[in-house]
């Protein structure tokens, strides 16, 4: 049988999506359903003196109006990742804020009404008496003396101080360095913007006290766990969480948000099913943002381009309150990646996590790793600039060599883990070849003579996928409050059809197809005979969900492990039925036979039927081919690659045009190349969005100036040309499938490639750095300054 793993099979999930039959959250309609709308703070920092809901409550069609005071029996949300250094100063949202708000968009009251129009009308009738307080939005300024204090328990607004590496060794390396470079870098705040906003629907059964809650969730089991055990303080068994068809997440749909317990509580309060669907304007204020770092980068290097040390100081803006895993992102997922693809002898990183009067910041596609990669890849270009060497050559000179794997980055910054496998130079060489790098350098020199500005930028990134070994992520200094294994159940039914249930969650990644491919390959059945069920806590084993490029490298490995045990049982049963010894049974292409007698084979379907009927089983064997596996990876995986971006900058306007984009990625073995390529395309365009067009802007009063899609510019189809792609394949030894993961690579790689290209285009004008997004205005201003 032809191999199924590695084939570009059309997705099993697509028919319902291309016909409009898929049911997203807002498509759920329950009998007697009522609608929820939420009143959000117009102030970034203010005390609530009083709220008058009487006019709103009197509007015909309004069922109830509630404020934070009505929900004081519900706990504040948990912060599940109190990364090392978080002091006793965790402040998280309540379902509605009863006393004080710390960012615009915090919910303070809500309406339940017969229709969404009436609910919105009633919001306008709620009167809040506000006492505005002084505001700070900049993470560095928030730590300075005299800054407004946002939470009493967090002096100077500091959430945590975190460090990794060896400060003394770095100090010494800088003292001895031939070259020292300092560069401030801003990694601007981004708004994740999945095309579907968040939403929640709930119904409640009195007498048994049971909730059913539908959430736009990347991690339904985690939502249930956090909501029951931490927020409501009820047994998990009293709640079923269903994640319906989900329209993208990019991290923003992992977290516990105040609206979910609010909606569940409202279903109980009004005694009817209720639904809340976020508007886009709400989404931009009340759903988490990403990035937002102010960094001071220092690089020590030799004249030959060898980097000898990195020192990185970062202020990470975490917003007015902490989101679910906020402190873990600019620490474990950032500092620990600062060696990038390079053998850097000494590294030190210090991070301040800071409260400001802005929206919550948490994981957004890449989550910490794009920020780290931006630092490292800008550093490589700055060294090239300083030494006069070609940026490709600087990367080559600093690459970790293939024979150095497994590689432990300097000064234990990776907290005991090692890079699994890598071979960085072939990917770089292939990318340069596809891009026509040498030829472009000639064109660039020619173009400059005519006043045209061409530039090329590289990014030889690595990333951390398959997050994460429980024993590592749970170390005391990491502060993650749980394991990060995944689970799967495989059942081969009597008719030979296979049902897989998984704790992973599909919101566009194609789990229903790729997991089916692994099953088809292992069992020798047709992909059409495999169905993958997910996203409902009723009927799926507990799993931590889909994020951190972990569904293939962790979740699918759980499926694989289950399949091995199913096969073993099938072999035992075949031996029994064929009256042979188990070690003589061959399992090939879905058939089991005694070595040398393939003509007398039993198909896996026949074996499944025999196991299910169960009247002729070997002594002691339980009926049914059914197995559940829990997989905890021994290590993370470390994909890598090189992206090359070529741009032309308009000397008159500063507008950047991408001429060519080449991506050579190594994500280990690939289950479905079409899906992996798609993940990379989407990731790249999001990364290019950060480089060129996106940025959340708060004014000094904490008002979000980019509060709708009109102001926040996500990429359109015309932003860039077709991406030229290739891959190298370096399987990971970490898991039996050799898969590394591909969800975030594009986003991580693209941003520095684009910025490096634009700076390169302007290098002869003396431009060394421009902060993102590289809008025409900023690029033009940089040209004028130099």
């Amino acid at each position, binding site marked *: 049988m032809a191999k199924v793993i590695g084939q570009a099979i059309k997705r099993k999930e697509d028919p319902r999506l291309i016909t409009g039959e898929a049911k997203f959250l807002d498509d759920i309609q329950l009998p007697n359903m009522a609608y929820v709308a939420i009143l959000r703070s117009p102030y970034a920092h203010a005390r609530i003196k009083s709220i008058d809901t009487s006019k709103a409550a009197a509007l015909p069609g309004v069922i109830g109006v509630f404020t934070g005071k009505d929900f004081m029996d519900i706990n504040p949300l948990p912060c599940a990742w109190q990364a090392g250094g978080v002091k006793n100063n965790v402040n998280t949202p309540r379902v509605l804020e009863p006393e004080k708000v710390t960012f615009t968009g915090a919910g303070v009251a809500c309406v339940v009404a017969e229709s969404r129009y009436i609910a919105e009308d009633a919001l306008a009738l709620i009167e809040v008496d506000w006492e505005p307080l002084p505001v700070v939005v900049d993470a560095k300024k928030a730590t300075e003396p005299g800054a407004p204090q946002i939470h009493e328990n967090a002096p100077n607004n500091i959430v945590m101080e975190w460090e990794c590496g060896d400060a003394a060794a770095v100090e010494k390396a800088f003292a001895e360095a031939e070259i020292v470079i300092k560069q401030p870098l801003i990694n601007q705040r981004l708004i994740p913007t999945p095309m579907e906003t968040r939403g929640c629907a709930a119904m409640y059964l009195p007498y048994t006290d049971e909730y059913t809650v539908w959430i736009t969730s990347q991690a339904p089991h985690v939502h249930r766990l956090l909501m029951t055990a931490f927020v409501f303080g009820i047994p998990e068994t009293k709640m079923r969480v269903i994640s319906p068809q989900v*329209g*993208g997440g990019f991290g923003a749909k992992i977290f516990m948000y105040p609206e979910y317990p609010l909606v569940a509580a409202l279903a109980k309060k009004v005694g009817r099913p209720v639904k809340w669907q976020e508007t886009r304007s709400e989404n931009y204020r009340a759903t988490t943002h990403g990035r937002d770092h102010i960094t001071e980068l220092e690089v020590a290097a030799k004249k030959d381009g060898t980097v000898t040390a990195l020192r990185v100081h970062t202020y990470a803006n975490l917003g007015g309150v902490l989101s679910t895993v906020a402190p873990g992102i600019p620490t474990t997922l950032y500092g620990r990646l600062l060696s990038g693809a390079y053998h850097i002898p000494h590294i030190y990183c210090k991070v301040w996590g800071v409260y400001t009067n802005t929206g919550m910041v948490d994981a957004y596609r890449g989550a910490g790793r794009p920020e780290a990669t931006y630092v490292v890849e800008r550093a490589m270009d700055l060294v090239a600039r300083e030494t006069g060497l070609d940026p490709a050559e600087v990367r080559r000179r600093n690459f970790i060599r293939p024979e150095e794997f497994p590689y432990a980055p300097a000064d234990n910054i990776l907290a005991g883990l090692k890079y699994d496998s890598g071979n960085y130079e072939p990917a770089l060489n292939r990318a340069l070849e596809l891009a026509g790098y040498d030829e472009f350098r000639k064109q660039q020199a020619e173009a400059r003579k005519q006043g045209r500005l061409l530039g090329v930028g590289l990014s030889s990134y690595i990333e951390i996928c398959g997050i994460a070994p429980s024993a590592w992520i749970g170390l005391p200094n990491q502060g993650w409050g749980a394991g990060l294994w995944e689970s799967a159940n495989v059942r081969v039914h009597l008719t030979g059809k296979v049902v897989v249930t998984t704790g992973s969650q599909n919101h566009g990644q194609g789990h229903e197809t790729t997991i089916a491919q692994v099953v088809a390959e292992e069992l020798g059945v047709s992909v059409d005979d495999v169905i993958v069920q997910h996203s409902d806590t009723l009927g799926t084993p507990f799993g931590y969900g889909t994020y951190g490029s972990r569904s293939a490298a962790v979740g699918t490995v759980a499926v694989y492990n289950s399949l091995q045990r199913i096969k073993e049982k099938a072999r035992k049963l075949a031996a029994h039925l064929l009256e042979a010894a188990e070690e003589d049974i061959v399992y090939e292409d879905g058939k089991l036979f005694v070595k040398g007698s393939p003509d007398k084979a039993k198909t896996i379907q026949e074996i499944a039927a025999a196991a299910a009927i169960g009247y002729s089983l070997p002594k002691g064997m339980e009926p049914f081919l059914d197995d559940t596996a829990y997989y905890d990876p021994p290590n993370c995986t470390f994909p890598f690659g090189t992206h090359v971006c070529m741009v032309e900058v308009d000397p008159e306007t500063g507008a950047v045009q991408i001429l060519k984009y080449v991506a050579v990625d190594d994500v280990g073995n690939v289950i479905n190349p079409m899906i992996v*390529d798609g993940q990379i395309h989407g990731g790249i365009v999001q990364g290019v969005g950060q480089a060129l067009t996106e940025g959340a802007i708060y004014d000094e009063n904490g008002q979000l100036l980019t509060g709708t899609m009109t102001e926040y510019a996500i990429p359109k189809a015309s932003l860039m040309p077709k991406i030229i792609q290739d891959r190298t394949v370096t399987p990971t030894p970490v898991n039996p499938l050799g898969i590394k993961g591909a969800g975030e690579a594009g986003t991580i790689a693209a941003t520095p490639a684009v910025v490096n290209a634009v700076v390169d285009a302007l290098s002869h004008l003396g431009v060394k750095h421009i902060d993102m997004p590289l809008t025409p205005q900023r690029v033009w201003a940089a040209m004028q300054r130099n």
Partner: protein
Amino acid sequence: MKREVTITVNGVTHTRTVEPRLLLVHFLRDELGLTGTNIGCDSSQCGACTVHLDGQAVKSCTVLAVQADGCRVTTIEGLANGKLHPLQQAFWEKHGLQCGFCTPGMIMASADLLSRNPNPTEEEIRRGLEGNLCRCTGYQNIVAAVQAAAEMMKK
């Protein structure tokens, strides 16, 4: 204040009494239960809500139901007739969707584009779809799907 409207959606004529402020997209979704048309924004930016109004692509969040009185509307549910439309087929084959939330609007906008220009270049497709945002695919396979559909429709 309510007004009666008669709108033919996917070939079926519906008469309803609606508030004058009711958006066409809510008429389709909430009154008729045609939830294939999605809502992705509140500023007429994303195109997730694209349907055909008297044969032309419109953002149904930007049209009032009363404005569509007497008109014909086609939604994603009305595109296939027993067999997938070439665009649906091509989006599937070329992996032109990931989460699929933008997809109904994207397909409806692409159908409009191909009806005006059956032979678009890559450039024309990218420009022609500027009113439809997709956060997942980076547009590359959407462009490929529209190209493939154009080929299929010639046959």
